[in-house]
């Protein structure tokens, strides 16, 4: 018995030592993470694990953009430090790393935390600690709850908005075809389907099939779609499963018109997945975007971002993920500038709520006191001859029953050096 007592006390004492030794005080007054010369922001990203391909580039690109801004003097004299934590797309890890960022590293804000299940778990914690939770990297509608989570803001157009716009394209350009749906068996697929139905009508989807990311055999689903005679397949899929679905359909001799969600429709990513032999299958693929495209060599945004990437992250292959990461960085710098020289957590939330940001996205952000969802529209694109180019008008809409409208204002152009002017 004495040994147990002894062990218990040894253990307790040792834990005290271990933890106390690891503990480091970080008490500073004023706004956490902000000094006269620096501002520290953090993020959680899947740098390892099955979700890491593609997505692991985003934070590298954001960081490269911040390096570029820092090299030009920072924002209001402050250099941006970007602390990227790997959560492996595991919500339990997200809990740990976000708390480390907020409580231990004392970041000013969390920027572009990636993933629906991962980020959902830290919403309450960020709210309790009043940490600005900006530009979440996911198209879920959960980020738009201003009453419940006043400091959380989205970035991506949500999946319902996307579904409505893709359906509008189908209605106008692919009339009288048999439309089917293939989607991930979760919110992503469900929200996208809701958007498609909103526009096309509930009874118009001939066949619906779903997949789970843990089962890579999609041949049964695609043979069903083939047997049903689908001519258009709306696909709410992540890139890996878009590639898998397109390749599997091809080997079944099934060549429908693919209409793919933005998150799973980046041609560069898909072509890399399919390899040289499979890439031609992407010809004709329809998707949508809201940011400058890789295949628009003349787009000034693309030119600038490519230049920054070449300078600050030379080994990074330039694709949609890189443009996405840079756009997040650009938007954050805009927000920092709008928040003014006296940077506080309240001032940046107010600045984001006040909105008025332009670029690099081709549609406006929806931020307002009553709306925290990100970009409110997309433009359909199409792969032709190996190039993914925008076609047709830019559309905007909401995530409910509002109409899909054309957005006619000209796309914003980047300032010199692609650094927003304060």
């Amino acid at each position: 018995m004495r040994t147990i007592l002894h062990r218990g006390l040894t253990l307790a004492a040792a834990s005290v030592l271990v933890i106390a030794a690891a503990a480091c005080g970080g008490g500073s007054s004023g706004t956490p993470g902000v000094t006269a010369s620096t501002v520290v922001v953090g993020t959680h990203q899947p740098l390892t694990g099955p979700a890491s391909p593609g997505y692991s580039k985003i934070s590298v690109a954001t960081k490269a953009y911040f390096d570029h801004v820092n090299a030009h003097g920072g924002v209001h004299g402050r250099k941006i430090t970007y602390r990227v934590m790997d959560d492996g797309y595991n919500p339990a890890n997200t809990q740990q790393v976000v708390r480390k960022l907020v409580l231990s590293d004392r970041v000013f804000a969390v920027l572009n935390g990636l993933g629906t299940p991962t980020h959902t778990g830290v919403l309450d914690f960020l709210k309790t600690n009043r940490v600005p939770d900006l530009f979440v990297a996911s198209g879920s509608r959960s980020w738009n709850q201003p009453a419940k989570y006043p400091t959380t803001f989205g970035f991506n157009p949500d999946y319902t908005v996307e579904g409505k716009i893709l359906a509008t394209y189908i209605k106008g350009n692919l009339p009288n075809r048999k439309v089917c749906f293939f989607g991930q068996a979760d919110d992503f697929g469900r929200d996208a389907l809701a958007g498609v139905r909103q526009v096309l009508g509930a009874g118009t989807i001939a066949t619906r099939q779903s997949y789970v990311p843990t089962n890579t055999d999609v041949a049964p689903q695609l043979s069903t779609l083939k047997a049903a005679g689908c001519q258009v397949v709306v696909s709410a899929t992540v890139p890996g499963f878009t590639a898998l679905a397109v390749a599997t359909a091809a080997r079944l001799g099934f060549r429908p018109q693919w209409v793919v969600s933005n998150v799973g429709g980046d041609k560069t990513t898909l072509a890399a997945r399919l390899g040289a032999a499979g890439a031609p299958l992407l010809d004709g693929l329809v998707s949508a975007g809201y940011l400058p495209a890789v295949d628009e060599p003349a787009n000034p945004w693309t030119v600038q971002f490519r230049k920054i990437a070449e300078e600050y992250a030379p080994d990074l292959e330039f694709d949609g993920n890189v443009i996405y990461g840079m756009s997040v960085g650009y938007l954050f710098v805009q927000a920092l500038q709008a928040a003014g020289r006296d940077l506080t957590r309240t001032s940046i939330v107010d600045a984001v709520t006040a909105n008025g940001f332009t670029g690099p996205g081709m549609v406006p952000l929806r931020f307002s006191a009553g709306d925290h969802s990100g970009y409110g529209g997309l433009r359909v694109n199409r792969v032709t001859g190996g190039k993914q180019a925008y076609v047709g008008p830019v559309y905007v809409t909401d995530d409910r029953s509002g109409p899909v409208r054309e957005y006619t204002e000209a796309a914003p152009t980047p300032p010199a050096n692609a650094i927003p002017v304060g």
Partner: protein
Amino acid sequence: MERFVFLTLDGLARGAVYAAFGLALVLIWRGTRVVNFAQGALAVASAYLAYTVTGATGSYWWGLVAALAGGLALGALVELLVMRWAGRAGPLEPVIAALGLVLLIQALLGMVYGNDFHPVDTPFARTALTVRGFDLVSPYDLFVLGAVLTVMLLLAVLFGRTKTGLRMRAAAFAPEVSRLLGVRVGRVLTLGWALAAAVGALAAMLVIPTELGLHPTAMDLVFVSGFTAAVVGGLDSPVGAVVGGLGVGVVLSYVGGYLGSDATPVAVLLLLLTVLLLRPGGLFSTVQARRV
């Protein structure tokens, strides 16, 4: 009917890979009473080697050769450096060591090759051959089935007809007696690990092109299916691994095709429970399964 045939063939092509992977697990289990949890990671490492070789030579076949040779070498190394020393404290320690190796290997691959999916080409077309409008198998599926069948025949000959095979069987069933009879059991175990890792590498080479692509974690799910296959068949029985692998492949295909993809893990659990509650040692756990 057409759909049933399609799902059966699709399931068999996948099941063949699970069978090969399960067979590799059985090889090691019989020799060392260890379930090699690192097998998926070893197989992926071999597939990365093939990726590099194919990239340099432009030939799929040189890559395949490199994967098999790499599998042999990796398996032998793991046995010599880790497993030989890990099994002394208890039956669990080798399992933990294997899990440690999984993390280590996947991390090293991530550092060297990056955490991106790399597409892997197949040597034959994956377009299904159609017979009177029916989608049947693709040439690649036939290649997969043929390769797995060849490996099984080779292993059967090796175990049943050669001196090395006799040594391996004896060392697996009665290591001490084998040593007394002059069998160098240590070397035989090293060879067993090498062979198993090569078979695992082949499974990875066959299955990765049909999945999301080459990635450090590409074989994690295949490991789960292959392990299930081996357990259903009975871990001591190579025949069981083959039957179990094909069975798991077909069941997954039927459930995915008729009930929906999200129901497949539930089907796997039910299959395992049904088989194991009727036969706690797997389908082929009795005496007749003891011969290779």
